């Protein structure tokens, strides 16, 4: 991707994210807005410092890409996270982006470095989410802006009635021996939903809509999202096990729960860290989908987009090397015997 094209592309991506952002603002109230605000502010500040340190002129592209990274961080962290968690994640991602050079060619997805680093460092803060508004539990109401600010800057604790586990966490950590239907029956987040998982289904569908918009405008290619979603559906069909107590969960839950759609359409299509051939993109997407499923079902974390994307990114140069054609034997002869 040429440099000139970067800025319009990022504007397109932000436009495609907007339906999902609106849904999230509706479901989680001011929390998402504060997340986004703190993340974008600190990302711009850090980017400025990085450009100063590198003695580079101020590029608009740089700022646009760091805004995009900050938006991803703001979406992926739970609403009403303490401010320093958000700043920590942003610092990690901006450093993870700029350590590889100020030219937006970072080999690892920067937002996912920040998220994974924060998840590993402070798992407790990232474990609970706000209960979405569409899952009306009676006690939950929208907080005002001043209350939200107080929670984010930790002068006040978040009401316990407002937090809860996400659907994937409930499914993963529910008691052994429960059939899938029993888990659905005993948790409001499943059986009061319009479609599978209350609140989250609309977020994921909005991300899907944004992704389809990007596909139709040809800003992203279809290969890697398609391969990733197909891999997840395929694995969850194999291990669905007719809803027994060993079941890995239904395909619909895996598609609409957690961050599947944003991962498929917005994270792994990042041009800097994706393979360049279409065959490579299919392999990359399936690797990411495979790791997401196995970590979700058998691993220690309820969702795995960040780890799976980083592992996928790590394999990208090898995929490129394998799909871009063999090296000629001349290269080999020249360098034999030289280490």
């Amino acid at each position: 991707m040429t440099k000139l094209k970067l800025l319009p592309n990022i504007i397109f991506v932000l436009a495609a994210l907007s339906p999902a952002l609106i849904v999230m603002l509706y479901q989680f109230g001011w929390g998402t807005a504060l997340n986004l605000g703190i993340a974008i502010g600190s990302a711009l500040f850090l980017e400025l410092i990085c450009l100063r340190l590198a003695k580079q002129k101020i590029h608009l592209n740089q700022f646009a890409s760091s805004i995009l990274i900050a938006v991803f961080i703001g979406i992926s962290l739970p609403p009403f996270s303490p401010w320093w968690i958000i700043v920590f994640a942003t610092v990690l991602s901006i450093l993870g982006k700029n350590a590889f050079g100020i030219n937006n060619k970072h080999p690892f997805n920067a937002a996912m470095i920040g998220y994974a680093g924060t998840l590993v460092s402070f798992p407790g803060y990232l474990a609970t989410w706000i209960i979405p508004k569409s899952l009306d539990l009676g006690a939950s109401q929208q907080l005002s802006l001043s209350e939200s600010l107080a929670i984010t800057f930790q002068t006040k604790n978040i009401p316990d009635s407002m937090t809860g586990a996400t659907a994937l966490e409930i499914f993963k950590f529910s008691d052994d021996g429960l059939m899938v239907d029993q888990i659905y029956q005993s948790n409001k987040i499943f059986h009061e939903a319009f479609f599978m998982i209350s609140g989250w289904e609309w977020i994921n569908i909005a991300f899907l809509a944004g992704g389809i918009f990007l596909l139709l405008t040809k800003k992203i290619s279809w290969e890697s999202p398609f391969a990733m979603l197909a891999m997840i559906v395929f694995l969850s069909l194999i291990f669905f096990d007719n809803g027994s107590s060993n079941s890995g969960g239904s395909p619909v839950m895996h598609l609409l729960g957690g961050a599947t759609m944003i991962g498929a359409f917005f994270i792994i299509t990042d041009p800097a860290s994706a393979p360049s051939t279409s065959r490579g993109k299919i392999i990359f997407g399936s690797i990411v989908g495979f790791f997401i499923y196995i970590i979700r079902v058998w691993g220690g974390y309820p969702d795995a987009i960040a780890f799976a994307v980083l592992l996928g990114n790590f394999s990208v140069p090898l995929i490129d090397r394998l799909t871009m054609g063999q090296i000629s034997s001349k290269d080999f002869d020249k360098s034999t015997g030289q280490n």
Partner: protein
Amino acid sequence: MAAANKMFEIISITVSAALVNNIIFVELLGLGFFFSTISNRDLWKLIVTTITLVLVVSSSLFYLTKIYLLDRFALRFLDILSAMLIVSIAANLVLKGLTNLYDIPKLLYNKFLVLVILNSGILYIAISATESENLLKVILNSFFAGFGFSLSLICFNAMHERILELKVPNILLGSPIIIIMAGIVSLAFMGFIGL
């Protein structure tokens, strides 16, 4: 049912040896050898084959020694010493075999020998693989540990080549950026905790 259980056990050995306990990114992040990158791509195939073979041979030899010699005569305090001896013997055997099969230049052979014998990773895997119950599991475990080792080395080499093309800031050029990269990958491997 028994066959299915066996199958599941084999798959879990495979995954845990190759990914969950990946020698480079989970167990020994500071493995010296993988930071010294080798530019010749075809050399990698040889190195990778050697490492995997040496691993399988040395850990099965060490397992047998442990059972029939060390345990029988209560010599468990000689664990590490005998493992080192066995690893160097196995490395020599495998390299002798490989030089007969392929045409490896003399200079490379010596370099290999040093690299392979001094490789703390092999020692580590060989010792930890022999915690398994029977010889088949030892062989499987060491083979897939070698597989994970090789896969990470190859991926890492490819990644290093890509990073050479980037405009990495001067202050991070060389080993700092490689260590940062290793840290990020190790972070990704932390996702396998509990698998």
